[in-house]
C-alpha cells in the first residue's frame, strides 16, 4: 500500500491549515456562505438536511487497519457512531458540525487521509477495481497509476474551477468491477501485440439527468503519457464547456455535442502540445510508487481445502469469496447490506472488527467497493472459517454479494437536500421482501440500484433493476427501470412506464423478478433474460 513521504504529508497538513483558516474566515463573517460553499465542497463538506456531511477520500478504495480505526474514532467522536460507504469507494459522515471539520481533517491527516476534492467542481477521488493486486484476471496492479493520477490532480492550478465534477476510474482486468464506462474518464490497462502495456481511454460517460456511456477515444496510450493525455482532456473540456447551465456542464455533454471524433481531434492536438512540454512523471517515479504496491509475502504450499461441513459457512463461501491469484488464498467480500439495514452503513465497532481482521488475516489491507461493500483482499483459505465466524458474530456475515438484497441506494430524502424521494426505506423493504436465502440464491445475480433523484448517486441507470425517486405533485413516486449494467457490457437501463408509490414499487419489482423466473432459460441471469426478450417481455407482467 502507498505510504506518504514528507512531501505528501506536508501537503495534507497544509490543506488542514488552509481549511481551518477558511472556516475561521467564514465563522468570522469575512466570507459569505455563497463564497464559502465551493471552498468547503472542495473539501468534501456538504450542508445536508439536518447537519453537515463530510466525505472522506479513500483513494482507489484501498485502506489499512490503522486508517479504518481512525474512521471508527471519527464516527464515535464527531458523528453518531457510524459511517456510510458510498458508491465512489469513499466514506461519509452525516452528522458533522462545521466547527469540528478542521479537527476531523487534522485527525485524518495523522493516518495519511484527507477529504481533498471529494465534492464540488473538481477532479474527484480516483476509483479502481477493488480486487486490484489480488485477482487472477488482471494484467498488472492498476493502483500505482491511480496514485500518480491522484498526486497530479491534487490542487491542479489550471483546473481550479472546472465546469463540473470530474470522475476517473482505472482498472486492469477483463472483468469490469468499477463501472468504468460510467465515468467522465475511464482508463483500462491493456496489453498490445508487442506485449507493451498501455491505456485504453474512454471519455464522456456519466449518470445524472442525461446519462451517457463513455466513448472509447484512444485504443492504446503508452502508460508514461497518461498525465499529458489527462491534462489534454481536462483543458479541452475546461475551455469549451458551457458555463451557463449547470445541467449541461459535465464533460459528457461536450463530448456529445462536439461528437466523438471532433472531441478526440481536439484532445489529440492538445495532447501533442503537453507531450512536447515534458510534464509526465518519469519512470523513476512510477517505480517508486509501484514498489509500495508490490505483492505481500504470500506463503507457498498452502492448502486449497475449505472445510464446508458447516452449511451456513458454505453458503457464505459460495457467495462472498472470489478467486485469488496466489494459491491457497482467497478474496473475501464483506457485505454491508444485512437485510433491513441501511446499505453501506457500518458502526464504529464493526469498523474496528474489520480492521482487526485485516491486520490479522489480510496483510493489513482492506478495500471499499463502489457497490458499498468491503473487501479483505488476501485471506488464506484455511482462515476463511475464522474470518466468517468473526464477521457473523458482528452482524457482517450476510451472504448476498450481487444478489437481489445487495442493493445500492443513495442517502435520499432521509439526508439529502436535493432528494425527491426516500431511497433507504425502499431498499429496506425490497430486501425484506426477498430476504429468504433460497429465493435469493435461486434468482442469482440481480443488481438493484436506487437513487432519490435524477442526480443518480444510487446508479439507477446501471441497475439490472433501477429505481428513481421523483416528485409527483408533491408526493414521492418511483420510476422503475430495467436492463442497466456497469460491467464490461455496459448498458443504460430503460424506464418501464408510469411510476409507483412506495408500496407499489416493491410489488412492481417483485412482479418483474417473478416474470424473469417464469421465462428464464437455463443459466440466464435477470439481465440476460431482459436482453433476450426486451422490455416487451416484462411490461405486461409489471402493469398487468
Amino acid at each position, binding site marked *: 500500500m502507498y505510504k506518504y*513521504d514528507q*512531501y*505528501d504529508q*506536508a*501537503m495534507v497538513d*497544509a490543506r488542514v*491549515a*488552509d481549511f481551518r*483558516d*477558511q472556516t475561521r*474566515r467564514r465563522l468570522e463573517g*469575512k466570507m459569505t456562505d455563497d*463564497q464559502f460553499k*465551493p*471552498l468547503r465542497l472542495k473539501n468534501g463538506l456538504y450542508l445536508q438536511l439536518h447537519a453537515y456531511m463530510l466525505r472522506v477520500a479513500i483513494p482507489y478504495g484501498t485502506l489499512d487497519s490503522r486508517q479504518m480505526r481512525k474512521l471508527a474514532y471519527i464516527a464515535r467522536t464527531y458523528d453518531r457512531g457510524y459511517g456510510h460507504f458510498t458508491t465512489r469507494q469513499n466514506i461519509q459522515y452525516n452528522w458533522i458540525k462545521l466547527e469540528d471539520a478542521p479537527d476531523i481533517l487534522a485527525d485524518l491527516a495523522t493516518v495519511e487521509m484527507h477529504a481533498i476534492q471529494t465534492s464540488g*467542481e473538481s477532479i474527484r477521488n480516483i476509483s479502481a477495481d477493488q480486487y486490484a493486486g489480488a485477482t487472477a484476471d488482471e494484467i498488472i496492479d492498476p493502483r500505482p497509476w491511480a496514485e500518480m493520477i491522484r*498526486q*497530479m490532480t*491534487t*490542487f*491542479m*492550478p*489550471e*483546473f*481550479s*474551477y*472546472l*465546469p463540473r465534477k470530474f470522475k476517473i476510474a482505472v482498472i486492469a482486468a477483463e472483468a469490469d468491477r468499477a463501472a468504468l464506462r460510467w465515468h467522465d474518464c475511464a482508463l483500462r490497462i491493456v496489453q498490445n501485440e508487442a506485449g507493451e502495456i498501455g491505456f485504453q481511454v474512454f471519455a464522456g460517460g456519466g449518470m445524472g439527468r442525461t446519462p451517457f456511456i463513455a466513448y472509447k477515444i484512444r485504443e492504446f496510450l503508452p502508460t508514461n503519457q497518461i*498525465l499529458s493525455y489527462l491534462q489534454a482532456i481536462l*483543458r479541452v473540456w*475546461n*475551455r469549451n464547456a458551457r*458555463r451557463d447551465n449547470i445541467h449541461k456542464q459535465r464533460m459528457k455533454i461536450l463530448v456529445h455535442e462536439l461528437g466523438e471524433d471532433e472531441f478526440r481531434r481536439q484532445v489529440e492536438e492538445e495532447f501533442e*502540445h503537453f507531450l*512536447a*512540454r*515534458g*510534464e509526465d*512523471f*518519469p519512470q*523513476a*517515479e512510477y517505480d*517508486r510508487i509501484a514498489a509500495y504496491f508490490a505483492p505481500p509475502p504470500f506463503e507457498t504450499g498452502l492448502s486449497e481445502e475449505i472445510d464446508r461441513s458447516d452449511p451456513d459457512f458454505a453458503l457464505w463461501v459460495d457467495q462472498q469469496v472470489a478467486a485469488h491469484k496466489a494459491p491457497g488464498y482467497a478474496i473475501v467480500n464483506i457485505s454491508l447490506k444485512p437485510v433491513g439495514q441501511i446499505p453501506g452503513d457500518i458502526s464504529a465497532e464493526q469498523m474496528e472488527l474489520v480492521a482487526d481482521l485485516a491486520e490479522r488475516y489480510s496483510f493489513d489491507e482492506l478495500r471499499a467497493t463502489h457497490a458499498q461493500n468491503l473487501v479483505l483482499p488476501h485471506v488464506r483459505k484455511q482462515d476463511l472459517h475464522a474470518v466468517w465466524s468473526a464477521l457473523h458474530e458482528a452482524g457482517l456475515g450476510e451472504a448476498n454479494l450481487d444478489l437481489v438484497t445487495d442493493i445500492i441506494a443513495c442517502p435520499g430524502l432521509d439526508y439529502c437536500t436535493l432528494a425527491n424521494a426516500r431511497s433507504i426505506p425502499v431498499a429496506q423493504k425490497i430486501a425484506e421482501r426477498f430476504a429468504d436465502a433460497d429465493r435469493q440464491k435461486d434468482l442469482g445475480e440481480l443488481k438493484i440500484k436506487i437513487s432519490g433523484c435524477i442526480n443518480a448517486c444510487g446508479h439507477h441507470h446501471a441497475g439490472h433493476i433501477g429505481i428513481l425517486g421523483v416528485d409527483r405533485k408533491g408526493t414521492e413516486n418511483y420510476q422503475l427501470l430495467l436492463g442497466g449494467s456497469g460491467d464490461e457490457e455496459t448498458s443504460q437501463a430503460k424506464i418501464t412506464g408510469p411510476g409507483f408509490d412506495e408500496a407499489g414499487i416493491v410489488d412492481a419489482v417483485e412482479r418483474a423478478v417473478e416474470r424473469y423466473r417464469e421465462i428464464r432459460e437455463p443459466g440466464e441471469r435477470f439481465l440476460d433474460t431482459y436482453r433476450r426478450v426486451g422490455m416487451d417481455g416484462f411490461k405486461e407482467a409489471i402493469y398487468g
Partner: protein
Amino acid sequence: MVDGPRAGGPGGGPGTLEPTPGGERDWLRFRDDSAPDEPAVSLDAFLDQSNAGSVRIEAGDDVRLLGPHLERLRLVEIDFPKFRDGRGFSSARILREMGYDGEIKATGEVLVDLIYFMRRCGFDSFAPNVPLDRADVESVLNRYPHVYQHAADAAVPIWQLRHG
C-alpha cells in the same frame, strides 16, 4: 519544456509575495516594471488594431489567437465574470506556454482563495471587484510548501524533488 518559459514573469513563485513598492494600490501587482497605462481593448478590436498593446479577454475568448501578436502585447486582462467560471485559468497558462511574459491581470470576481492558483497559472496582477484583505492574501499565497505538478510558474513539482 520546448515552447515557452515556465516562469510567470517577475515576482517569483506562487509562495512569494513581493509586491511592488509604491503603496496600497499596487500590493496586488507582482511585477517590477511599470504598469501599462493604455486601456485594454476587446480581443476583436485588438486583432483589428495593429497598434494596441493591451487586450481584455472575456471568459469565452480563445487566447491562442494572440499567438502572432505577442511582440506588441504588454497587458492581458482576463476577466472572471463569476469565480466559478474557471476558463481564465487555462487562458493565462496558455499565454505563458506561448512565451508571453508581459502582465496578466485577473479582473472580476477574484477571491482570496483563488489567487494562489492564479499565480501558478501565470497571473501577476489582480484587480478584484471586491477589495481583498492583505493578510489573508499573504497567508493563502504562503500556505502550500510544495506543488504536485507543473503549471506556469517556476515551482518545482514534488516528483522532481524526489528524483533530484
